[in-house]
């Protein structure tokens, strides 16, 4: 059978009435899940996996891909409108998107988010089709040393993620996040750390309760302080303006997509990191001064990045049966449940599967854009609802979200504790985003550093002899050094001397 045959088989599934309705419902559901703080993409895929267990294989795959893309894209709505990211992947969008909403530009921000999500998804699909073998080989080259340096890199960029204020607060936030990530059983020796005898703590601190607590609670509690909020009417925007933003940002979009796909393809990092890295990259290379106060380019970068990571995460699923991110892991499990065998035998045993996935992704992207644009007309009205009514309901959703992750009340209590921390941090102007990154990256850093050292009997020479490692080290130093005033003065001094000479 040729590629065209497979594509037409896939089209048969999508274009059928059952297919269209299923796609519509699943993307819609994904968007809603993405929008509601506390309900994540991973959860959405997991819930639908259970629901579609007895469905026909291709239909189930269509539904799951639809909900996955919908959920990752939907997070931007609550990030922009409420400053509470609907999923961790959209945390970066909130930084610029929310100030935009407070300036009355919510409509524009959401339009641009959706368009960027669409672009990111499509570019991600292109990479799946073209680069799967290449990226798979590259992902395999990422051994413990590279993974560790990747986490270091992630922490280093924390200093730049603060929206105003001093970088040191960003780093402190990041490091405290790292410290909290160490709670629980360590992966190498299974020794309980910082758990003080509480069994539930030995499982570690999961990401979602922390995210909801840090980002959500300050907003929710703000509703109890009525002076701090006024209702801002939403100004209409012309679609032309939205497209103009995108046209301006073509380089941004492409770069964010590449970074997103790469982060997705590396197992262990996923859409969350994809969004942040793209945001940071754009911020660094941008000459604009409005960062932190509503820079639309930031929204473009983070939404493109996190959606491109979806394609990226699916690449190792298809080629190695290794998930590139948490939702992709559930997707992989679902594939297995339906008898598909992603992995090295994919093209031999069930070659049509690849085409199914690609075609479904394309249609999901279009459906997502269609639905998201139409929903946003309603969701933007959420800004008009009094906080006093909205926030308590959001709180209940958060409680559910924290519970459903691992089915434990403990996570809800954890969310409460981190909520208090989040409120304090907000008061003291510590950014929450680096903390989140710290929790995400901490265990990865620990595991990989120790493994690299154990493999090399304590010598760090291997970090310098492996090419990718070395590249990372140089890059990280290049980022770090200018941050320190001494170094900056040195560089200035050298430049001045050179100018005097010439």
């Amino acid at each position, binding site marked *: 059978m040729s590629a065209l045959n497979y594509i037409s088989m896939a089209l048969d599934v999508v274009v059928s009435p059952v297919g269209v309705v299923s796609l519509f419902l699943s993307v819609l559901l994904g968007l809603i899940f993405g929008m509601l703080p506390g309900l994540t993409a991973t959860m959405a895929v997991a819930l639908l996996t259970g629901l579609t267990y007895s469905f026909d294989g291709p239909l189930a795959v269509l539904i799951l891909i639809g909900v996955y893309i919908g959920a990752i894209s939907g997070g931007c709505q609550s990030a922009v409108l409420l400053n509470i990211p609907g999923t961790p992947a959209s945390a970066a969008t909130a930084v610029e998107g929310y100030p935009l909403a407070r300036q009355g530009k919510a409509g524009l921000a959401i339009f641009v988010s959706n368009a960027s999500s669409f672009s990111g998804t499509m570019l991600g699909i292109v990479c799946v089709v073209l680069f799967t073998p290449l990226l798979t080989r590259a992902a395999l080259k990422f051994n413990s040393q590279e993974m560790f340096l990747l986490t270091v890199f992630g922490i280093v960029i924390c200093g730049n993620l603060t929206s105003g204020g001093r970088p040191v607060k960003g780093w402190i936030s990041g490091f405290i996040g790292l410290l909290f990530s160490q709670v629980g059983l360590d992966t190498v020796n299974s020794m309980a750390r910082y758990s003080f005898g509480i069994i539930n703590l030995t499982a570690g601190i999961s990401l979602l309760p922390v995210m909801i607590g840090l980002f959500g609670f300050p907003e929710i509690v703000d509703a109890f302080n009525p002076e701090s909020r006024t209702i801002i009417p939403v100004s209409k925007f012309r679609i032309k303006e939205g497209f103009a933003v995108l046209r301006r940002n073509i380089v941004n979009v492409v770069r964010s997509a590449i970074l997103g796909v790469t982060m997705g393809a590396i197992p262990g990092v996923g859409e969350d990191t994809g969004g942040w890295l793209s945001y940071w990259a754009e911020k660094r290379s941008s000459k604009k001064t409005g960062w932190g106060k509503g820079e639309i380019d930031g929204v473009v970068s983070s939404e493109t990045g996190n959606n491109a990571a979806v394609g990226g995460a699916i690449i190792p699923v298809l080629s190695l049966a290794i998930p590139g991110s948490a939702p992709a892991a559930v997707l992989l499990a679902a594939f297995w449940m339906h008898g598909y065998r992603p992995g090295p035998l994919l093209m031999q045993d069930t070659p049509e599967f690849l085409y199914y996935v690609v075609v479904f992704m394309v249609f999901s992207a279009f459906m997502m854009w269609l639905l998201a644009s139409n929903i946003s007309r309603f969701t933007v009205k959420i800004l008009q609802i009094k906080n006093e009514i909205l926030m*308590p309901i959001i709180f*209940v959703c958060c409680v559910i979200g924290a519970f459903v992750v691992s089915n434990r009340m403990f996570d809800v209590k954890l969310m409460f504790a981190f909520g208090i921390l989040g409120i304090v941090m907000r008061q003291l102007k510590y950014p929450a985003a680096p903390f989140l990154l710290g929790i995400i990256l901490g265990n990865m850093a620990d595991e990989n550093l120790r493994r690299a050292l154990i493999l090399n009997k304590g010598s760090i020479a291997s970090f310098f002899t492996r090419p990718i490692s070395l590249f990372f080290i140089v890059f990280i130093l290049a980022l770090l050094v200018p941050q320190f005033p001494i170094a900056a003065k040195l560089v200035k001094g050298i430049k001045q001397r050179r100018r005097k000479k010439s």
Partner: protein
Amino acid sequence: MAEEKTTQEPADEDRFAGIDPVTGAARSDGKEHLDFATAVLLLGVSIFSVILAYGYYVSSGKVFYASPGLMPVIIAGGVFLLALSLLVQSLKGSSVKERAGQVCEAIPRGLKSKRFLNSSAALGMFWVYIFILLEFLPFWLASLSLLFAVFAYLKASSLIKCIIIAGCSIGGIVLLFQVAFRVPLP
């Protein structure tokens, strides 16, 4: 294009303060005493963590670089250095005594502030919900109670509207999760 009515209230400026827009340098925001207090706290936390981490290293019986104590020591060490830097920054133009005095003054002031009282009320209600209501009551009842209590406290809307909104939202949630997805609720 409709007119843009933007009212920037103090809360927004608060969020973005800290950088002098002209020189780009961090400017004093009158809150250094809080930084001072945080720095001291963090120093304590990092030392505590290092001590515990050393204990993990010893009890694991492995070489240091392979022990579970490695990463916590590195991280806690980092926190220590960063807290020191924060401490130094907060002491610029002032002294330890002065800052400590400012902190002591600020505490009772803060405890009496409206913001603190409102936030505590909120957290109190949430605490009761999570730790007490959800343990003993079925989900829908606990959540309805919470919403009623919060709406009443915030004087959110007329009584009828409150009941309707609370009922609809909880009903919708229960419908979606328990019926449609069969997901256990807290």
